[in-house]
């Protein structure tokens, strides 16, 4: 089939069939002033010229910088075998590959993905993924609203501000009361959250580690919420979940996360994967697809999409979400990554990242006038305050090939001197030393 389907004779044939004599006549219905002045389509280029053009465009990106950016998206390593396996043509198949129950392989992979994720978070149920961490958090809030039939949502300001923007945008036209409780020096404000929860509250929403990197235990907060009939929603960081107290152990009702850190590359913002888990009690409120394992009439193991009686293709008006595309390939990539790393590999990845962060923080503290935002425990990310503005430090270092972190002043008033610094197992001591040295040289 040619790439350009319309030859002159085909166009004439189609015009004849419609009963008009020219393209102009075909579009005569469209008022003159509403038609495009010109299509401005450039002439064709040779393959070599196109390649050169694309390479020049790609070269305009800074792809060789050393980055200490995190803030919800993390540059972790993934075994080369993971991308080799996921690149197999069988996985890049038709739209909604899990739909027919004959796709046993895909359904089994989804089932195993769900199993891996529920074990990681110590939660009872997982779906097969939604778009990303931010939309997952929005869906979690809507689950709580439906389950409790209440309309107030209490959210910590230490939840990723990008997610909070997603939530306020998505809920703009819904009759929800969104109460944001300010952080205290980067710590999640437990007292403020408990005070804000009342008998009208659907859920309390927190993040662990929070946006500033603090690792906290939310068990008591979740108990307090439960006592008032509110659900507990947490946004987590999957890699660290292998070493810190799990949302399940803290008593969370719903836990969501951005799945990117589990083997998906930082690819200019996606596609990423929204992880969603919950207690069994809430499973019917969970949007998206869930694969289950069962036995057929002959007693053989089979995998099926389950709980789909509420899905939009059966009861559109009752569907719990309008998510119609599944993140099957991203979920599969996550599963392959987790299987290749294993428990120990994931744990090592987390511990090495945290060691690097501890080292970076200690080195930065050696600089004059530099201090940590607070003394709370942190994982692989921490907020550090400088005598100068965080953003200016970033700009200065970027010209030297290093992005030292995320300037907190972008989203938090009063924290203009802050930088959120993230390390992963991929950073070397030399890179950290160079970053610290360059910052030290700015004074």
């Amino acid at each position: 089939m040619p790439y350009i389907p319309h030859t002159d004779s085909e166009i004439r044939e189609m015009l004849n069939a419609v009963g008009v004599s020219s393209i102009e006549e075909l579009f005569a219905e469209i008022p003159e002033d509403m038609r495009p002045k010109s299509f401005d389509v450039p002439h064709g280029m040779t393959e070599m010229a196109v390649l050169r053009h694309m390479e020049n465009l790609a070269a305009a990106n800074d792809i060789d910088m050393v980055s200490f950016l995190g803030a919800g998206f993390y540059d972790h390593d993934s075994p080369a075998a993971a991308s080799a396996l996921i690149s197999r043509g069988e996985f890049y198949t038709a739209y909604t590959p899990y739909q027919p129950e004959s796709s046993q392989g895909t359904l089994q992979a989804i089932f195993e993905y769900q199993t891996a994720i529920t074990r990681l978070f110590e939660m009872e149920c997982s779906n097969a993924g939604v778009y990303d961490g931010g939309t997952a958090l929005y869906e979690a809030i809507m689950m709580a609203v439906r389950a409790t039939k209440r309309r107030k949502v209490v959210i910590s300001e230490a939840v990723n501000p990008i997610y909070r923007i997603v939530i306020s945008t998505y809920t703009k036209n819904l009759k929800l009361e969104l109460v944001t409780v300010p952080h205290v020096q980067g710590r999640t404000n437990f007292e403020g959250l408990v005070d804000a929860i009342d008998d009208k509250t659907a859920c309390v929403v927190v993040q662990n580690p929070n946006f500033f990197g603090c690792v906290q235990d939310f068990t008591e907060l979740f108990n307090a919420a439960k006592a008032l009939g509110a659900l507990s929603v947490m946004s987590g960081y999957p890699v660290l979940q292998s070493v810190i107290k799990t949302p399940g152990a803290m008593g969370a009702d719903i836990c969501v996360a951005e799945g990117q850190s589990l083997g998906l590359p930082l690819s200019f913002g996606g596609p990423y994967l929204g992880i969603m888990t919950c207690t069994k009690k809430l499973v019917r409120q969970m949007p998206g697809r869930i694969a289950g394992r069962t036995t057929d009439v002959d007693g053989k193991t089979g995998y099926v999409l389950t709980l789909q009686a509420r899905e939009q293709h059966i009861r559109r008006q009752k569907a719990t979400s309008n998510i119609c595309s599944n993140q099957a390939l991203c979920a599969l990539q996550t599963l392959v990554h987790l299987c290749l790393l294993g428990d120990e590999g994931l744990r090592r990845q987390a511990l090495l990242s945290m060691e690097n962060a501890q080292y970076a923080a200690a080195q930065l503290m050696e600089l004059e006038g530099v201090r940590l935002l607070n003394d709370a425990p942190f994982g692989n990310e921490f907020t550090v305050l400088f005598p100068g503005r965080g953003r200016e430090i970033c700009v200065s270092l970027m010209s030297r090939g290093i992005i030292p972190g995320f300037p907190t002043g972008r989203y938090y008033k009063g924290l203009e001197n802050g930088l959120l610094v993230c390390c992963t197992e991929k950073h070397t001591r030399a890179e950290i030393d160079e970053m610290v040295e360059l910052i030290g040289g700015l004074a």
Partner: protein
Amino acid sequence: MISNDLLYTKTHEWLRQEDDIAVVGITHFAQEQLGDITFVELPNVGDTITAGEEMGSVESVKAASELYSPVTGEIIEVNAQLDDAPELLNDDPYGEGWIIKIRCSEDPEGMLSPEEYADYIESEH
């Protein structure tokens, strides 16, 4: 199978009147159409419901259907057994598989007698 001492709706609920208390469930015909029932979404005790309006749903392996209230009143009891054993709706729809008890604030209106319901499902299906 239609029980002779009950009243019926066209949406396949049954009602057993005991003074001002009404017990409500779904019919044998309904459970047969739905197949294996996996979940019953119940209203809350204390909720006020209106005749003809949605009060919950029944989910089976192949479909989910709304439950409509046959009468107006206040929910005084729900069959908590259904949380763990929704299959009671299949096994004993007119007995153990009852769904809610309502304190009626009005008399039921426009309900079908056992004979009318039998004719109705005969003609509709």
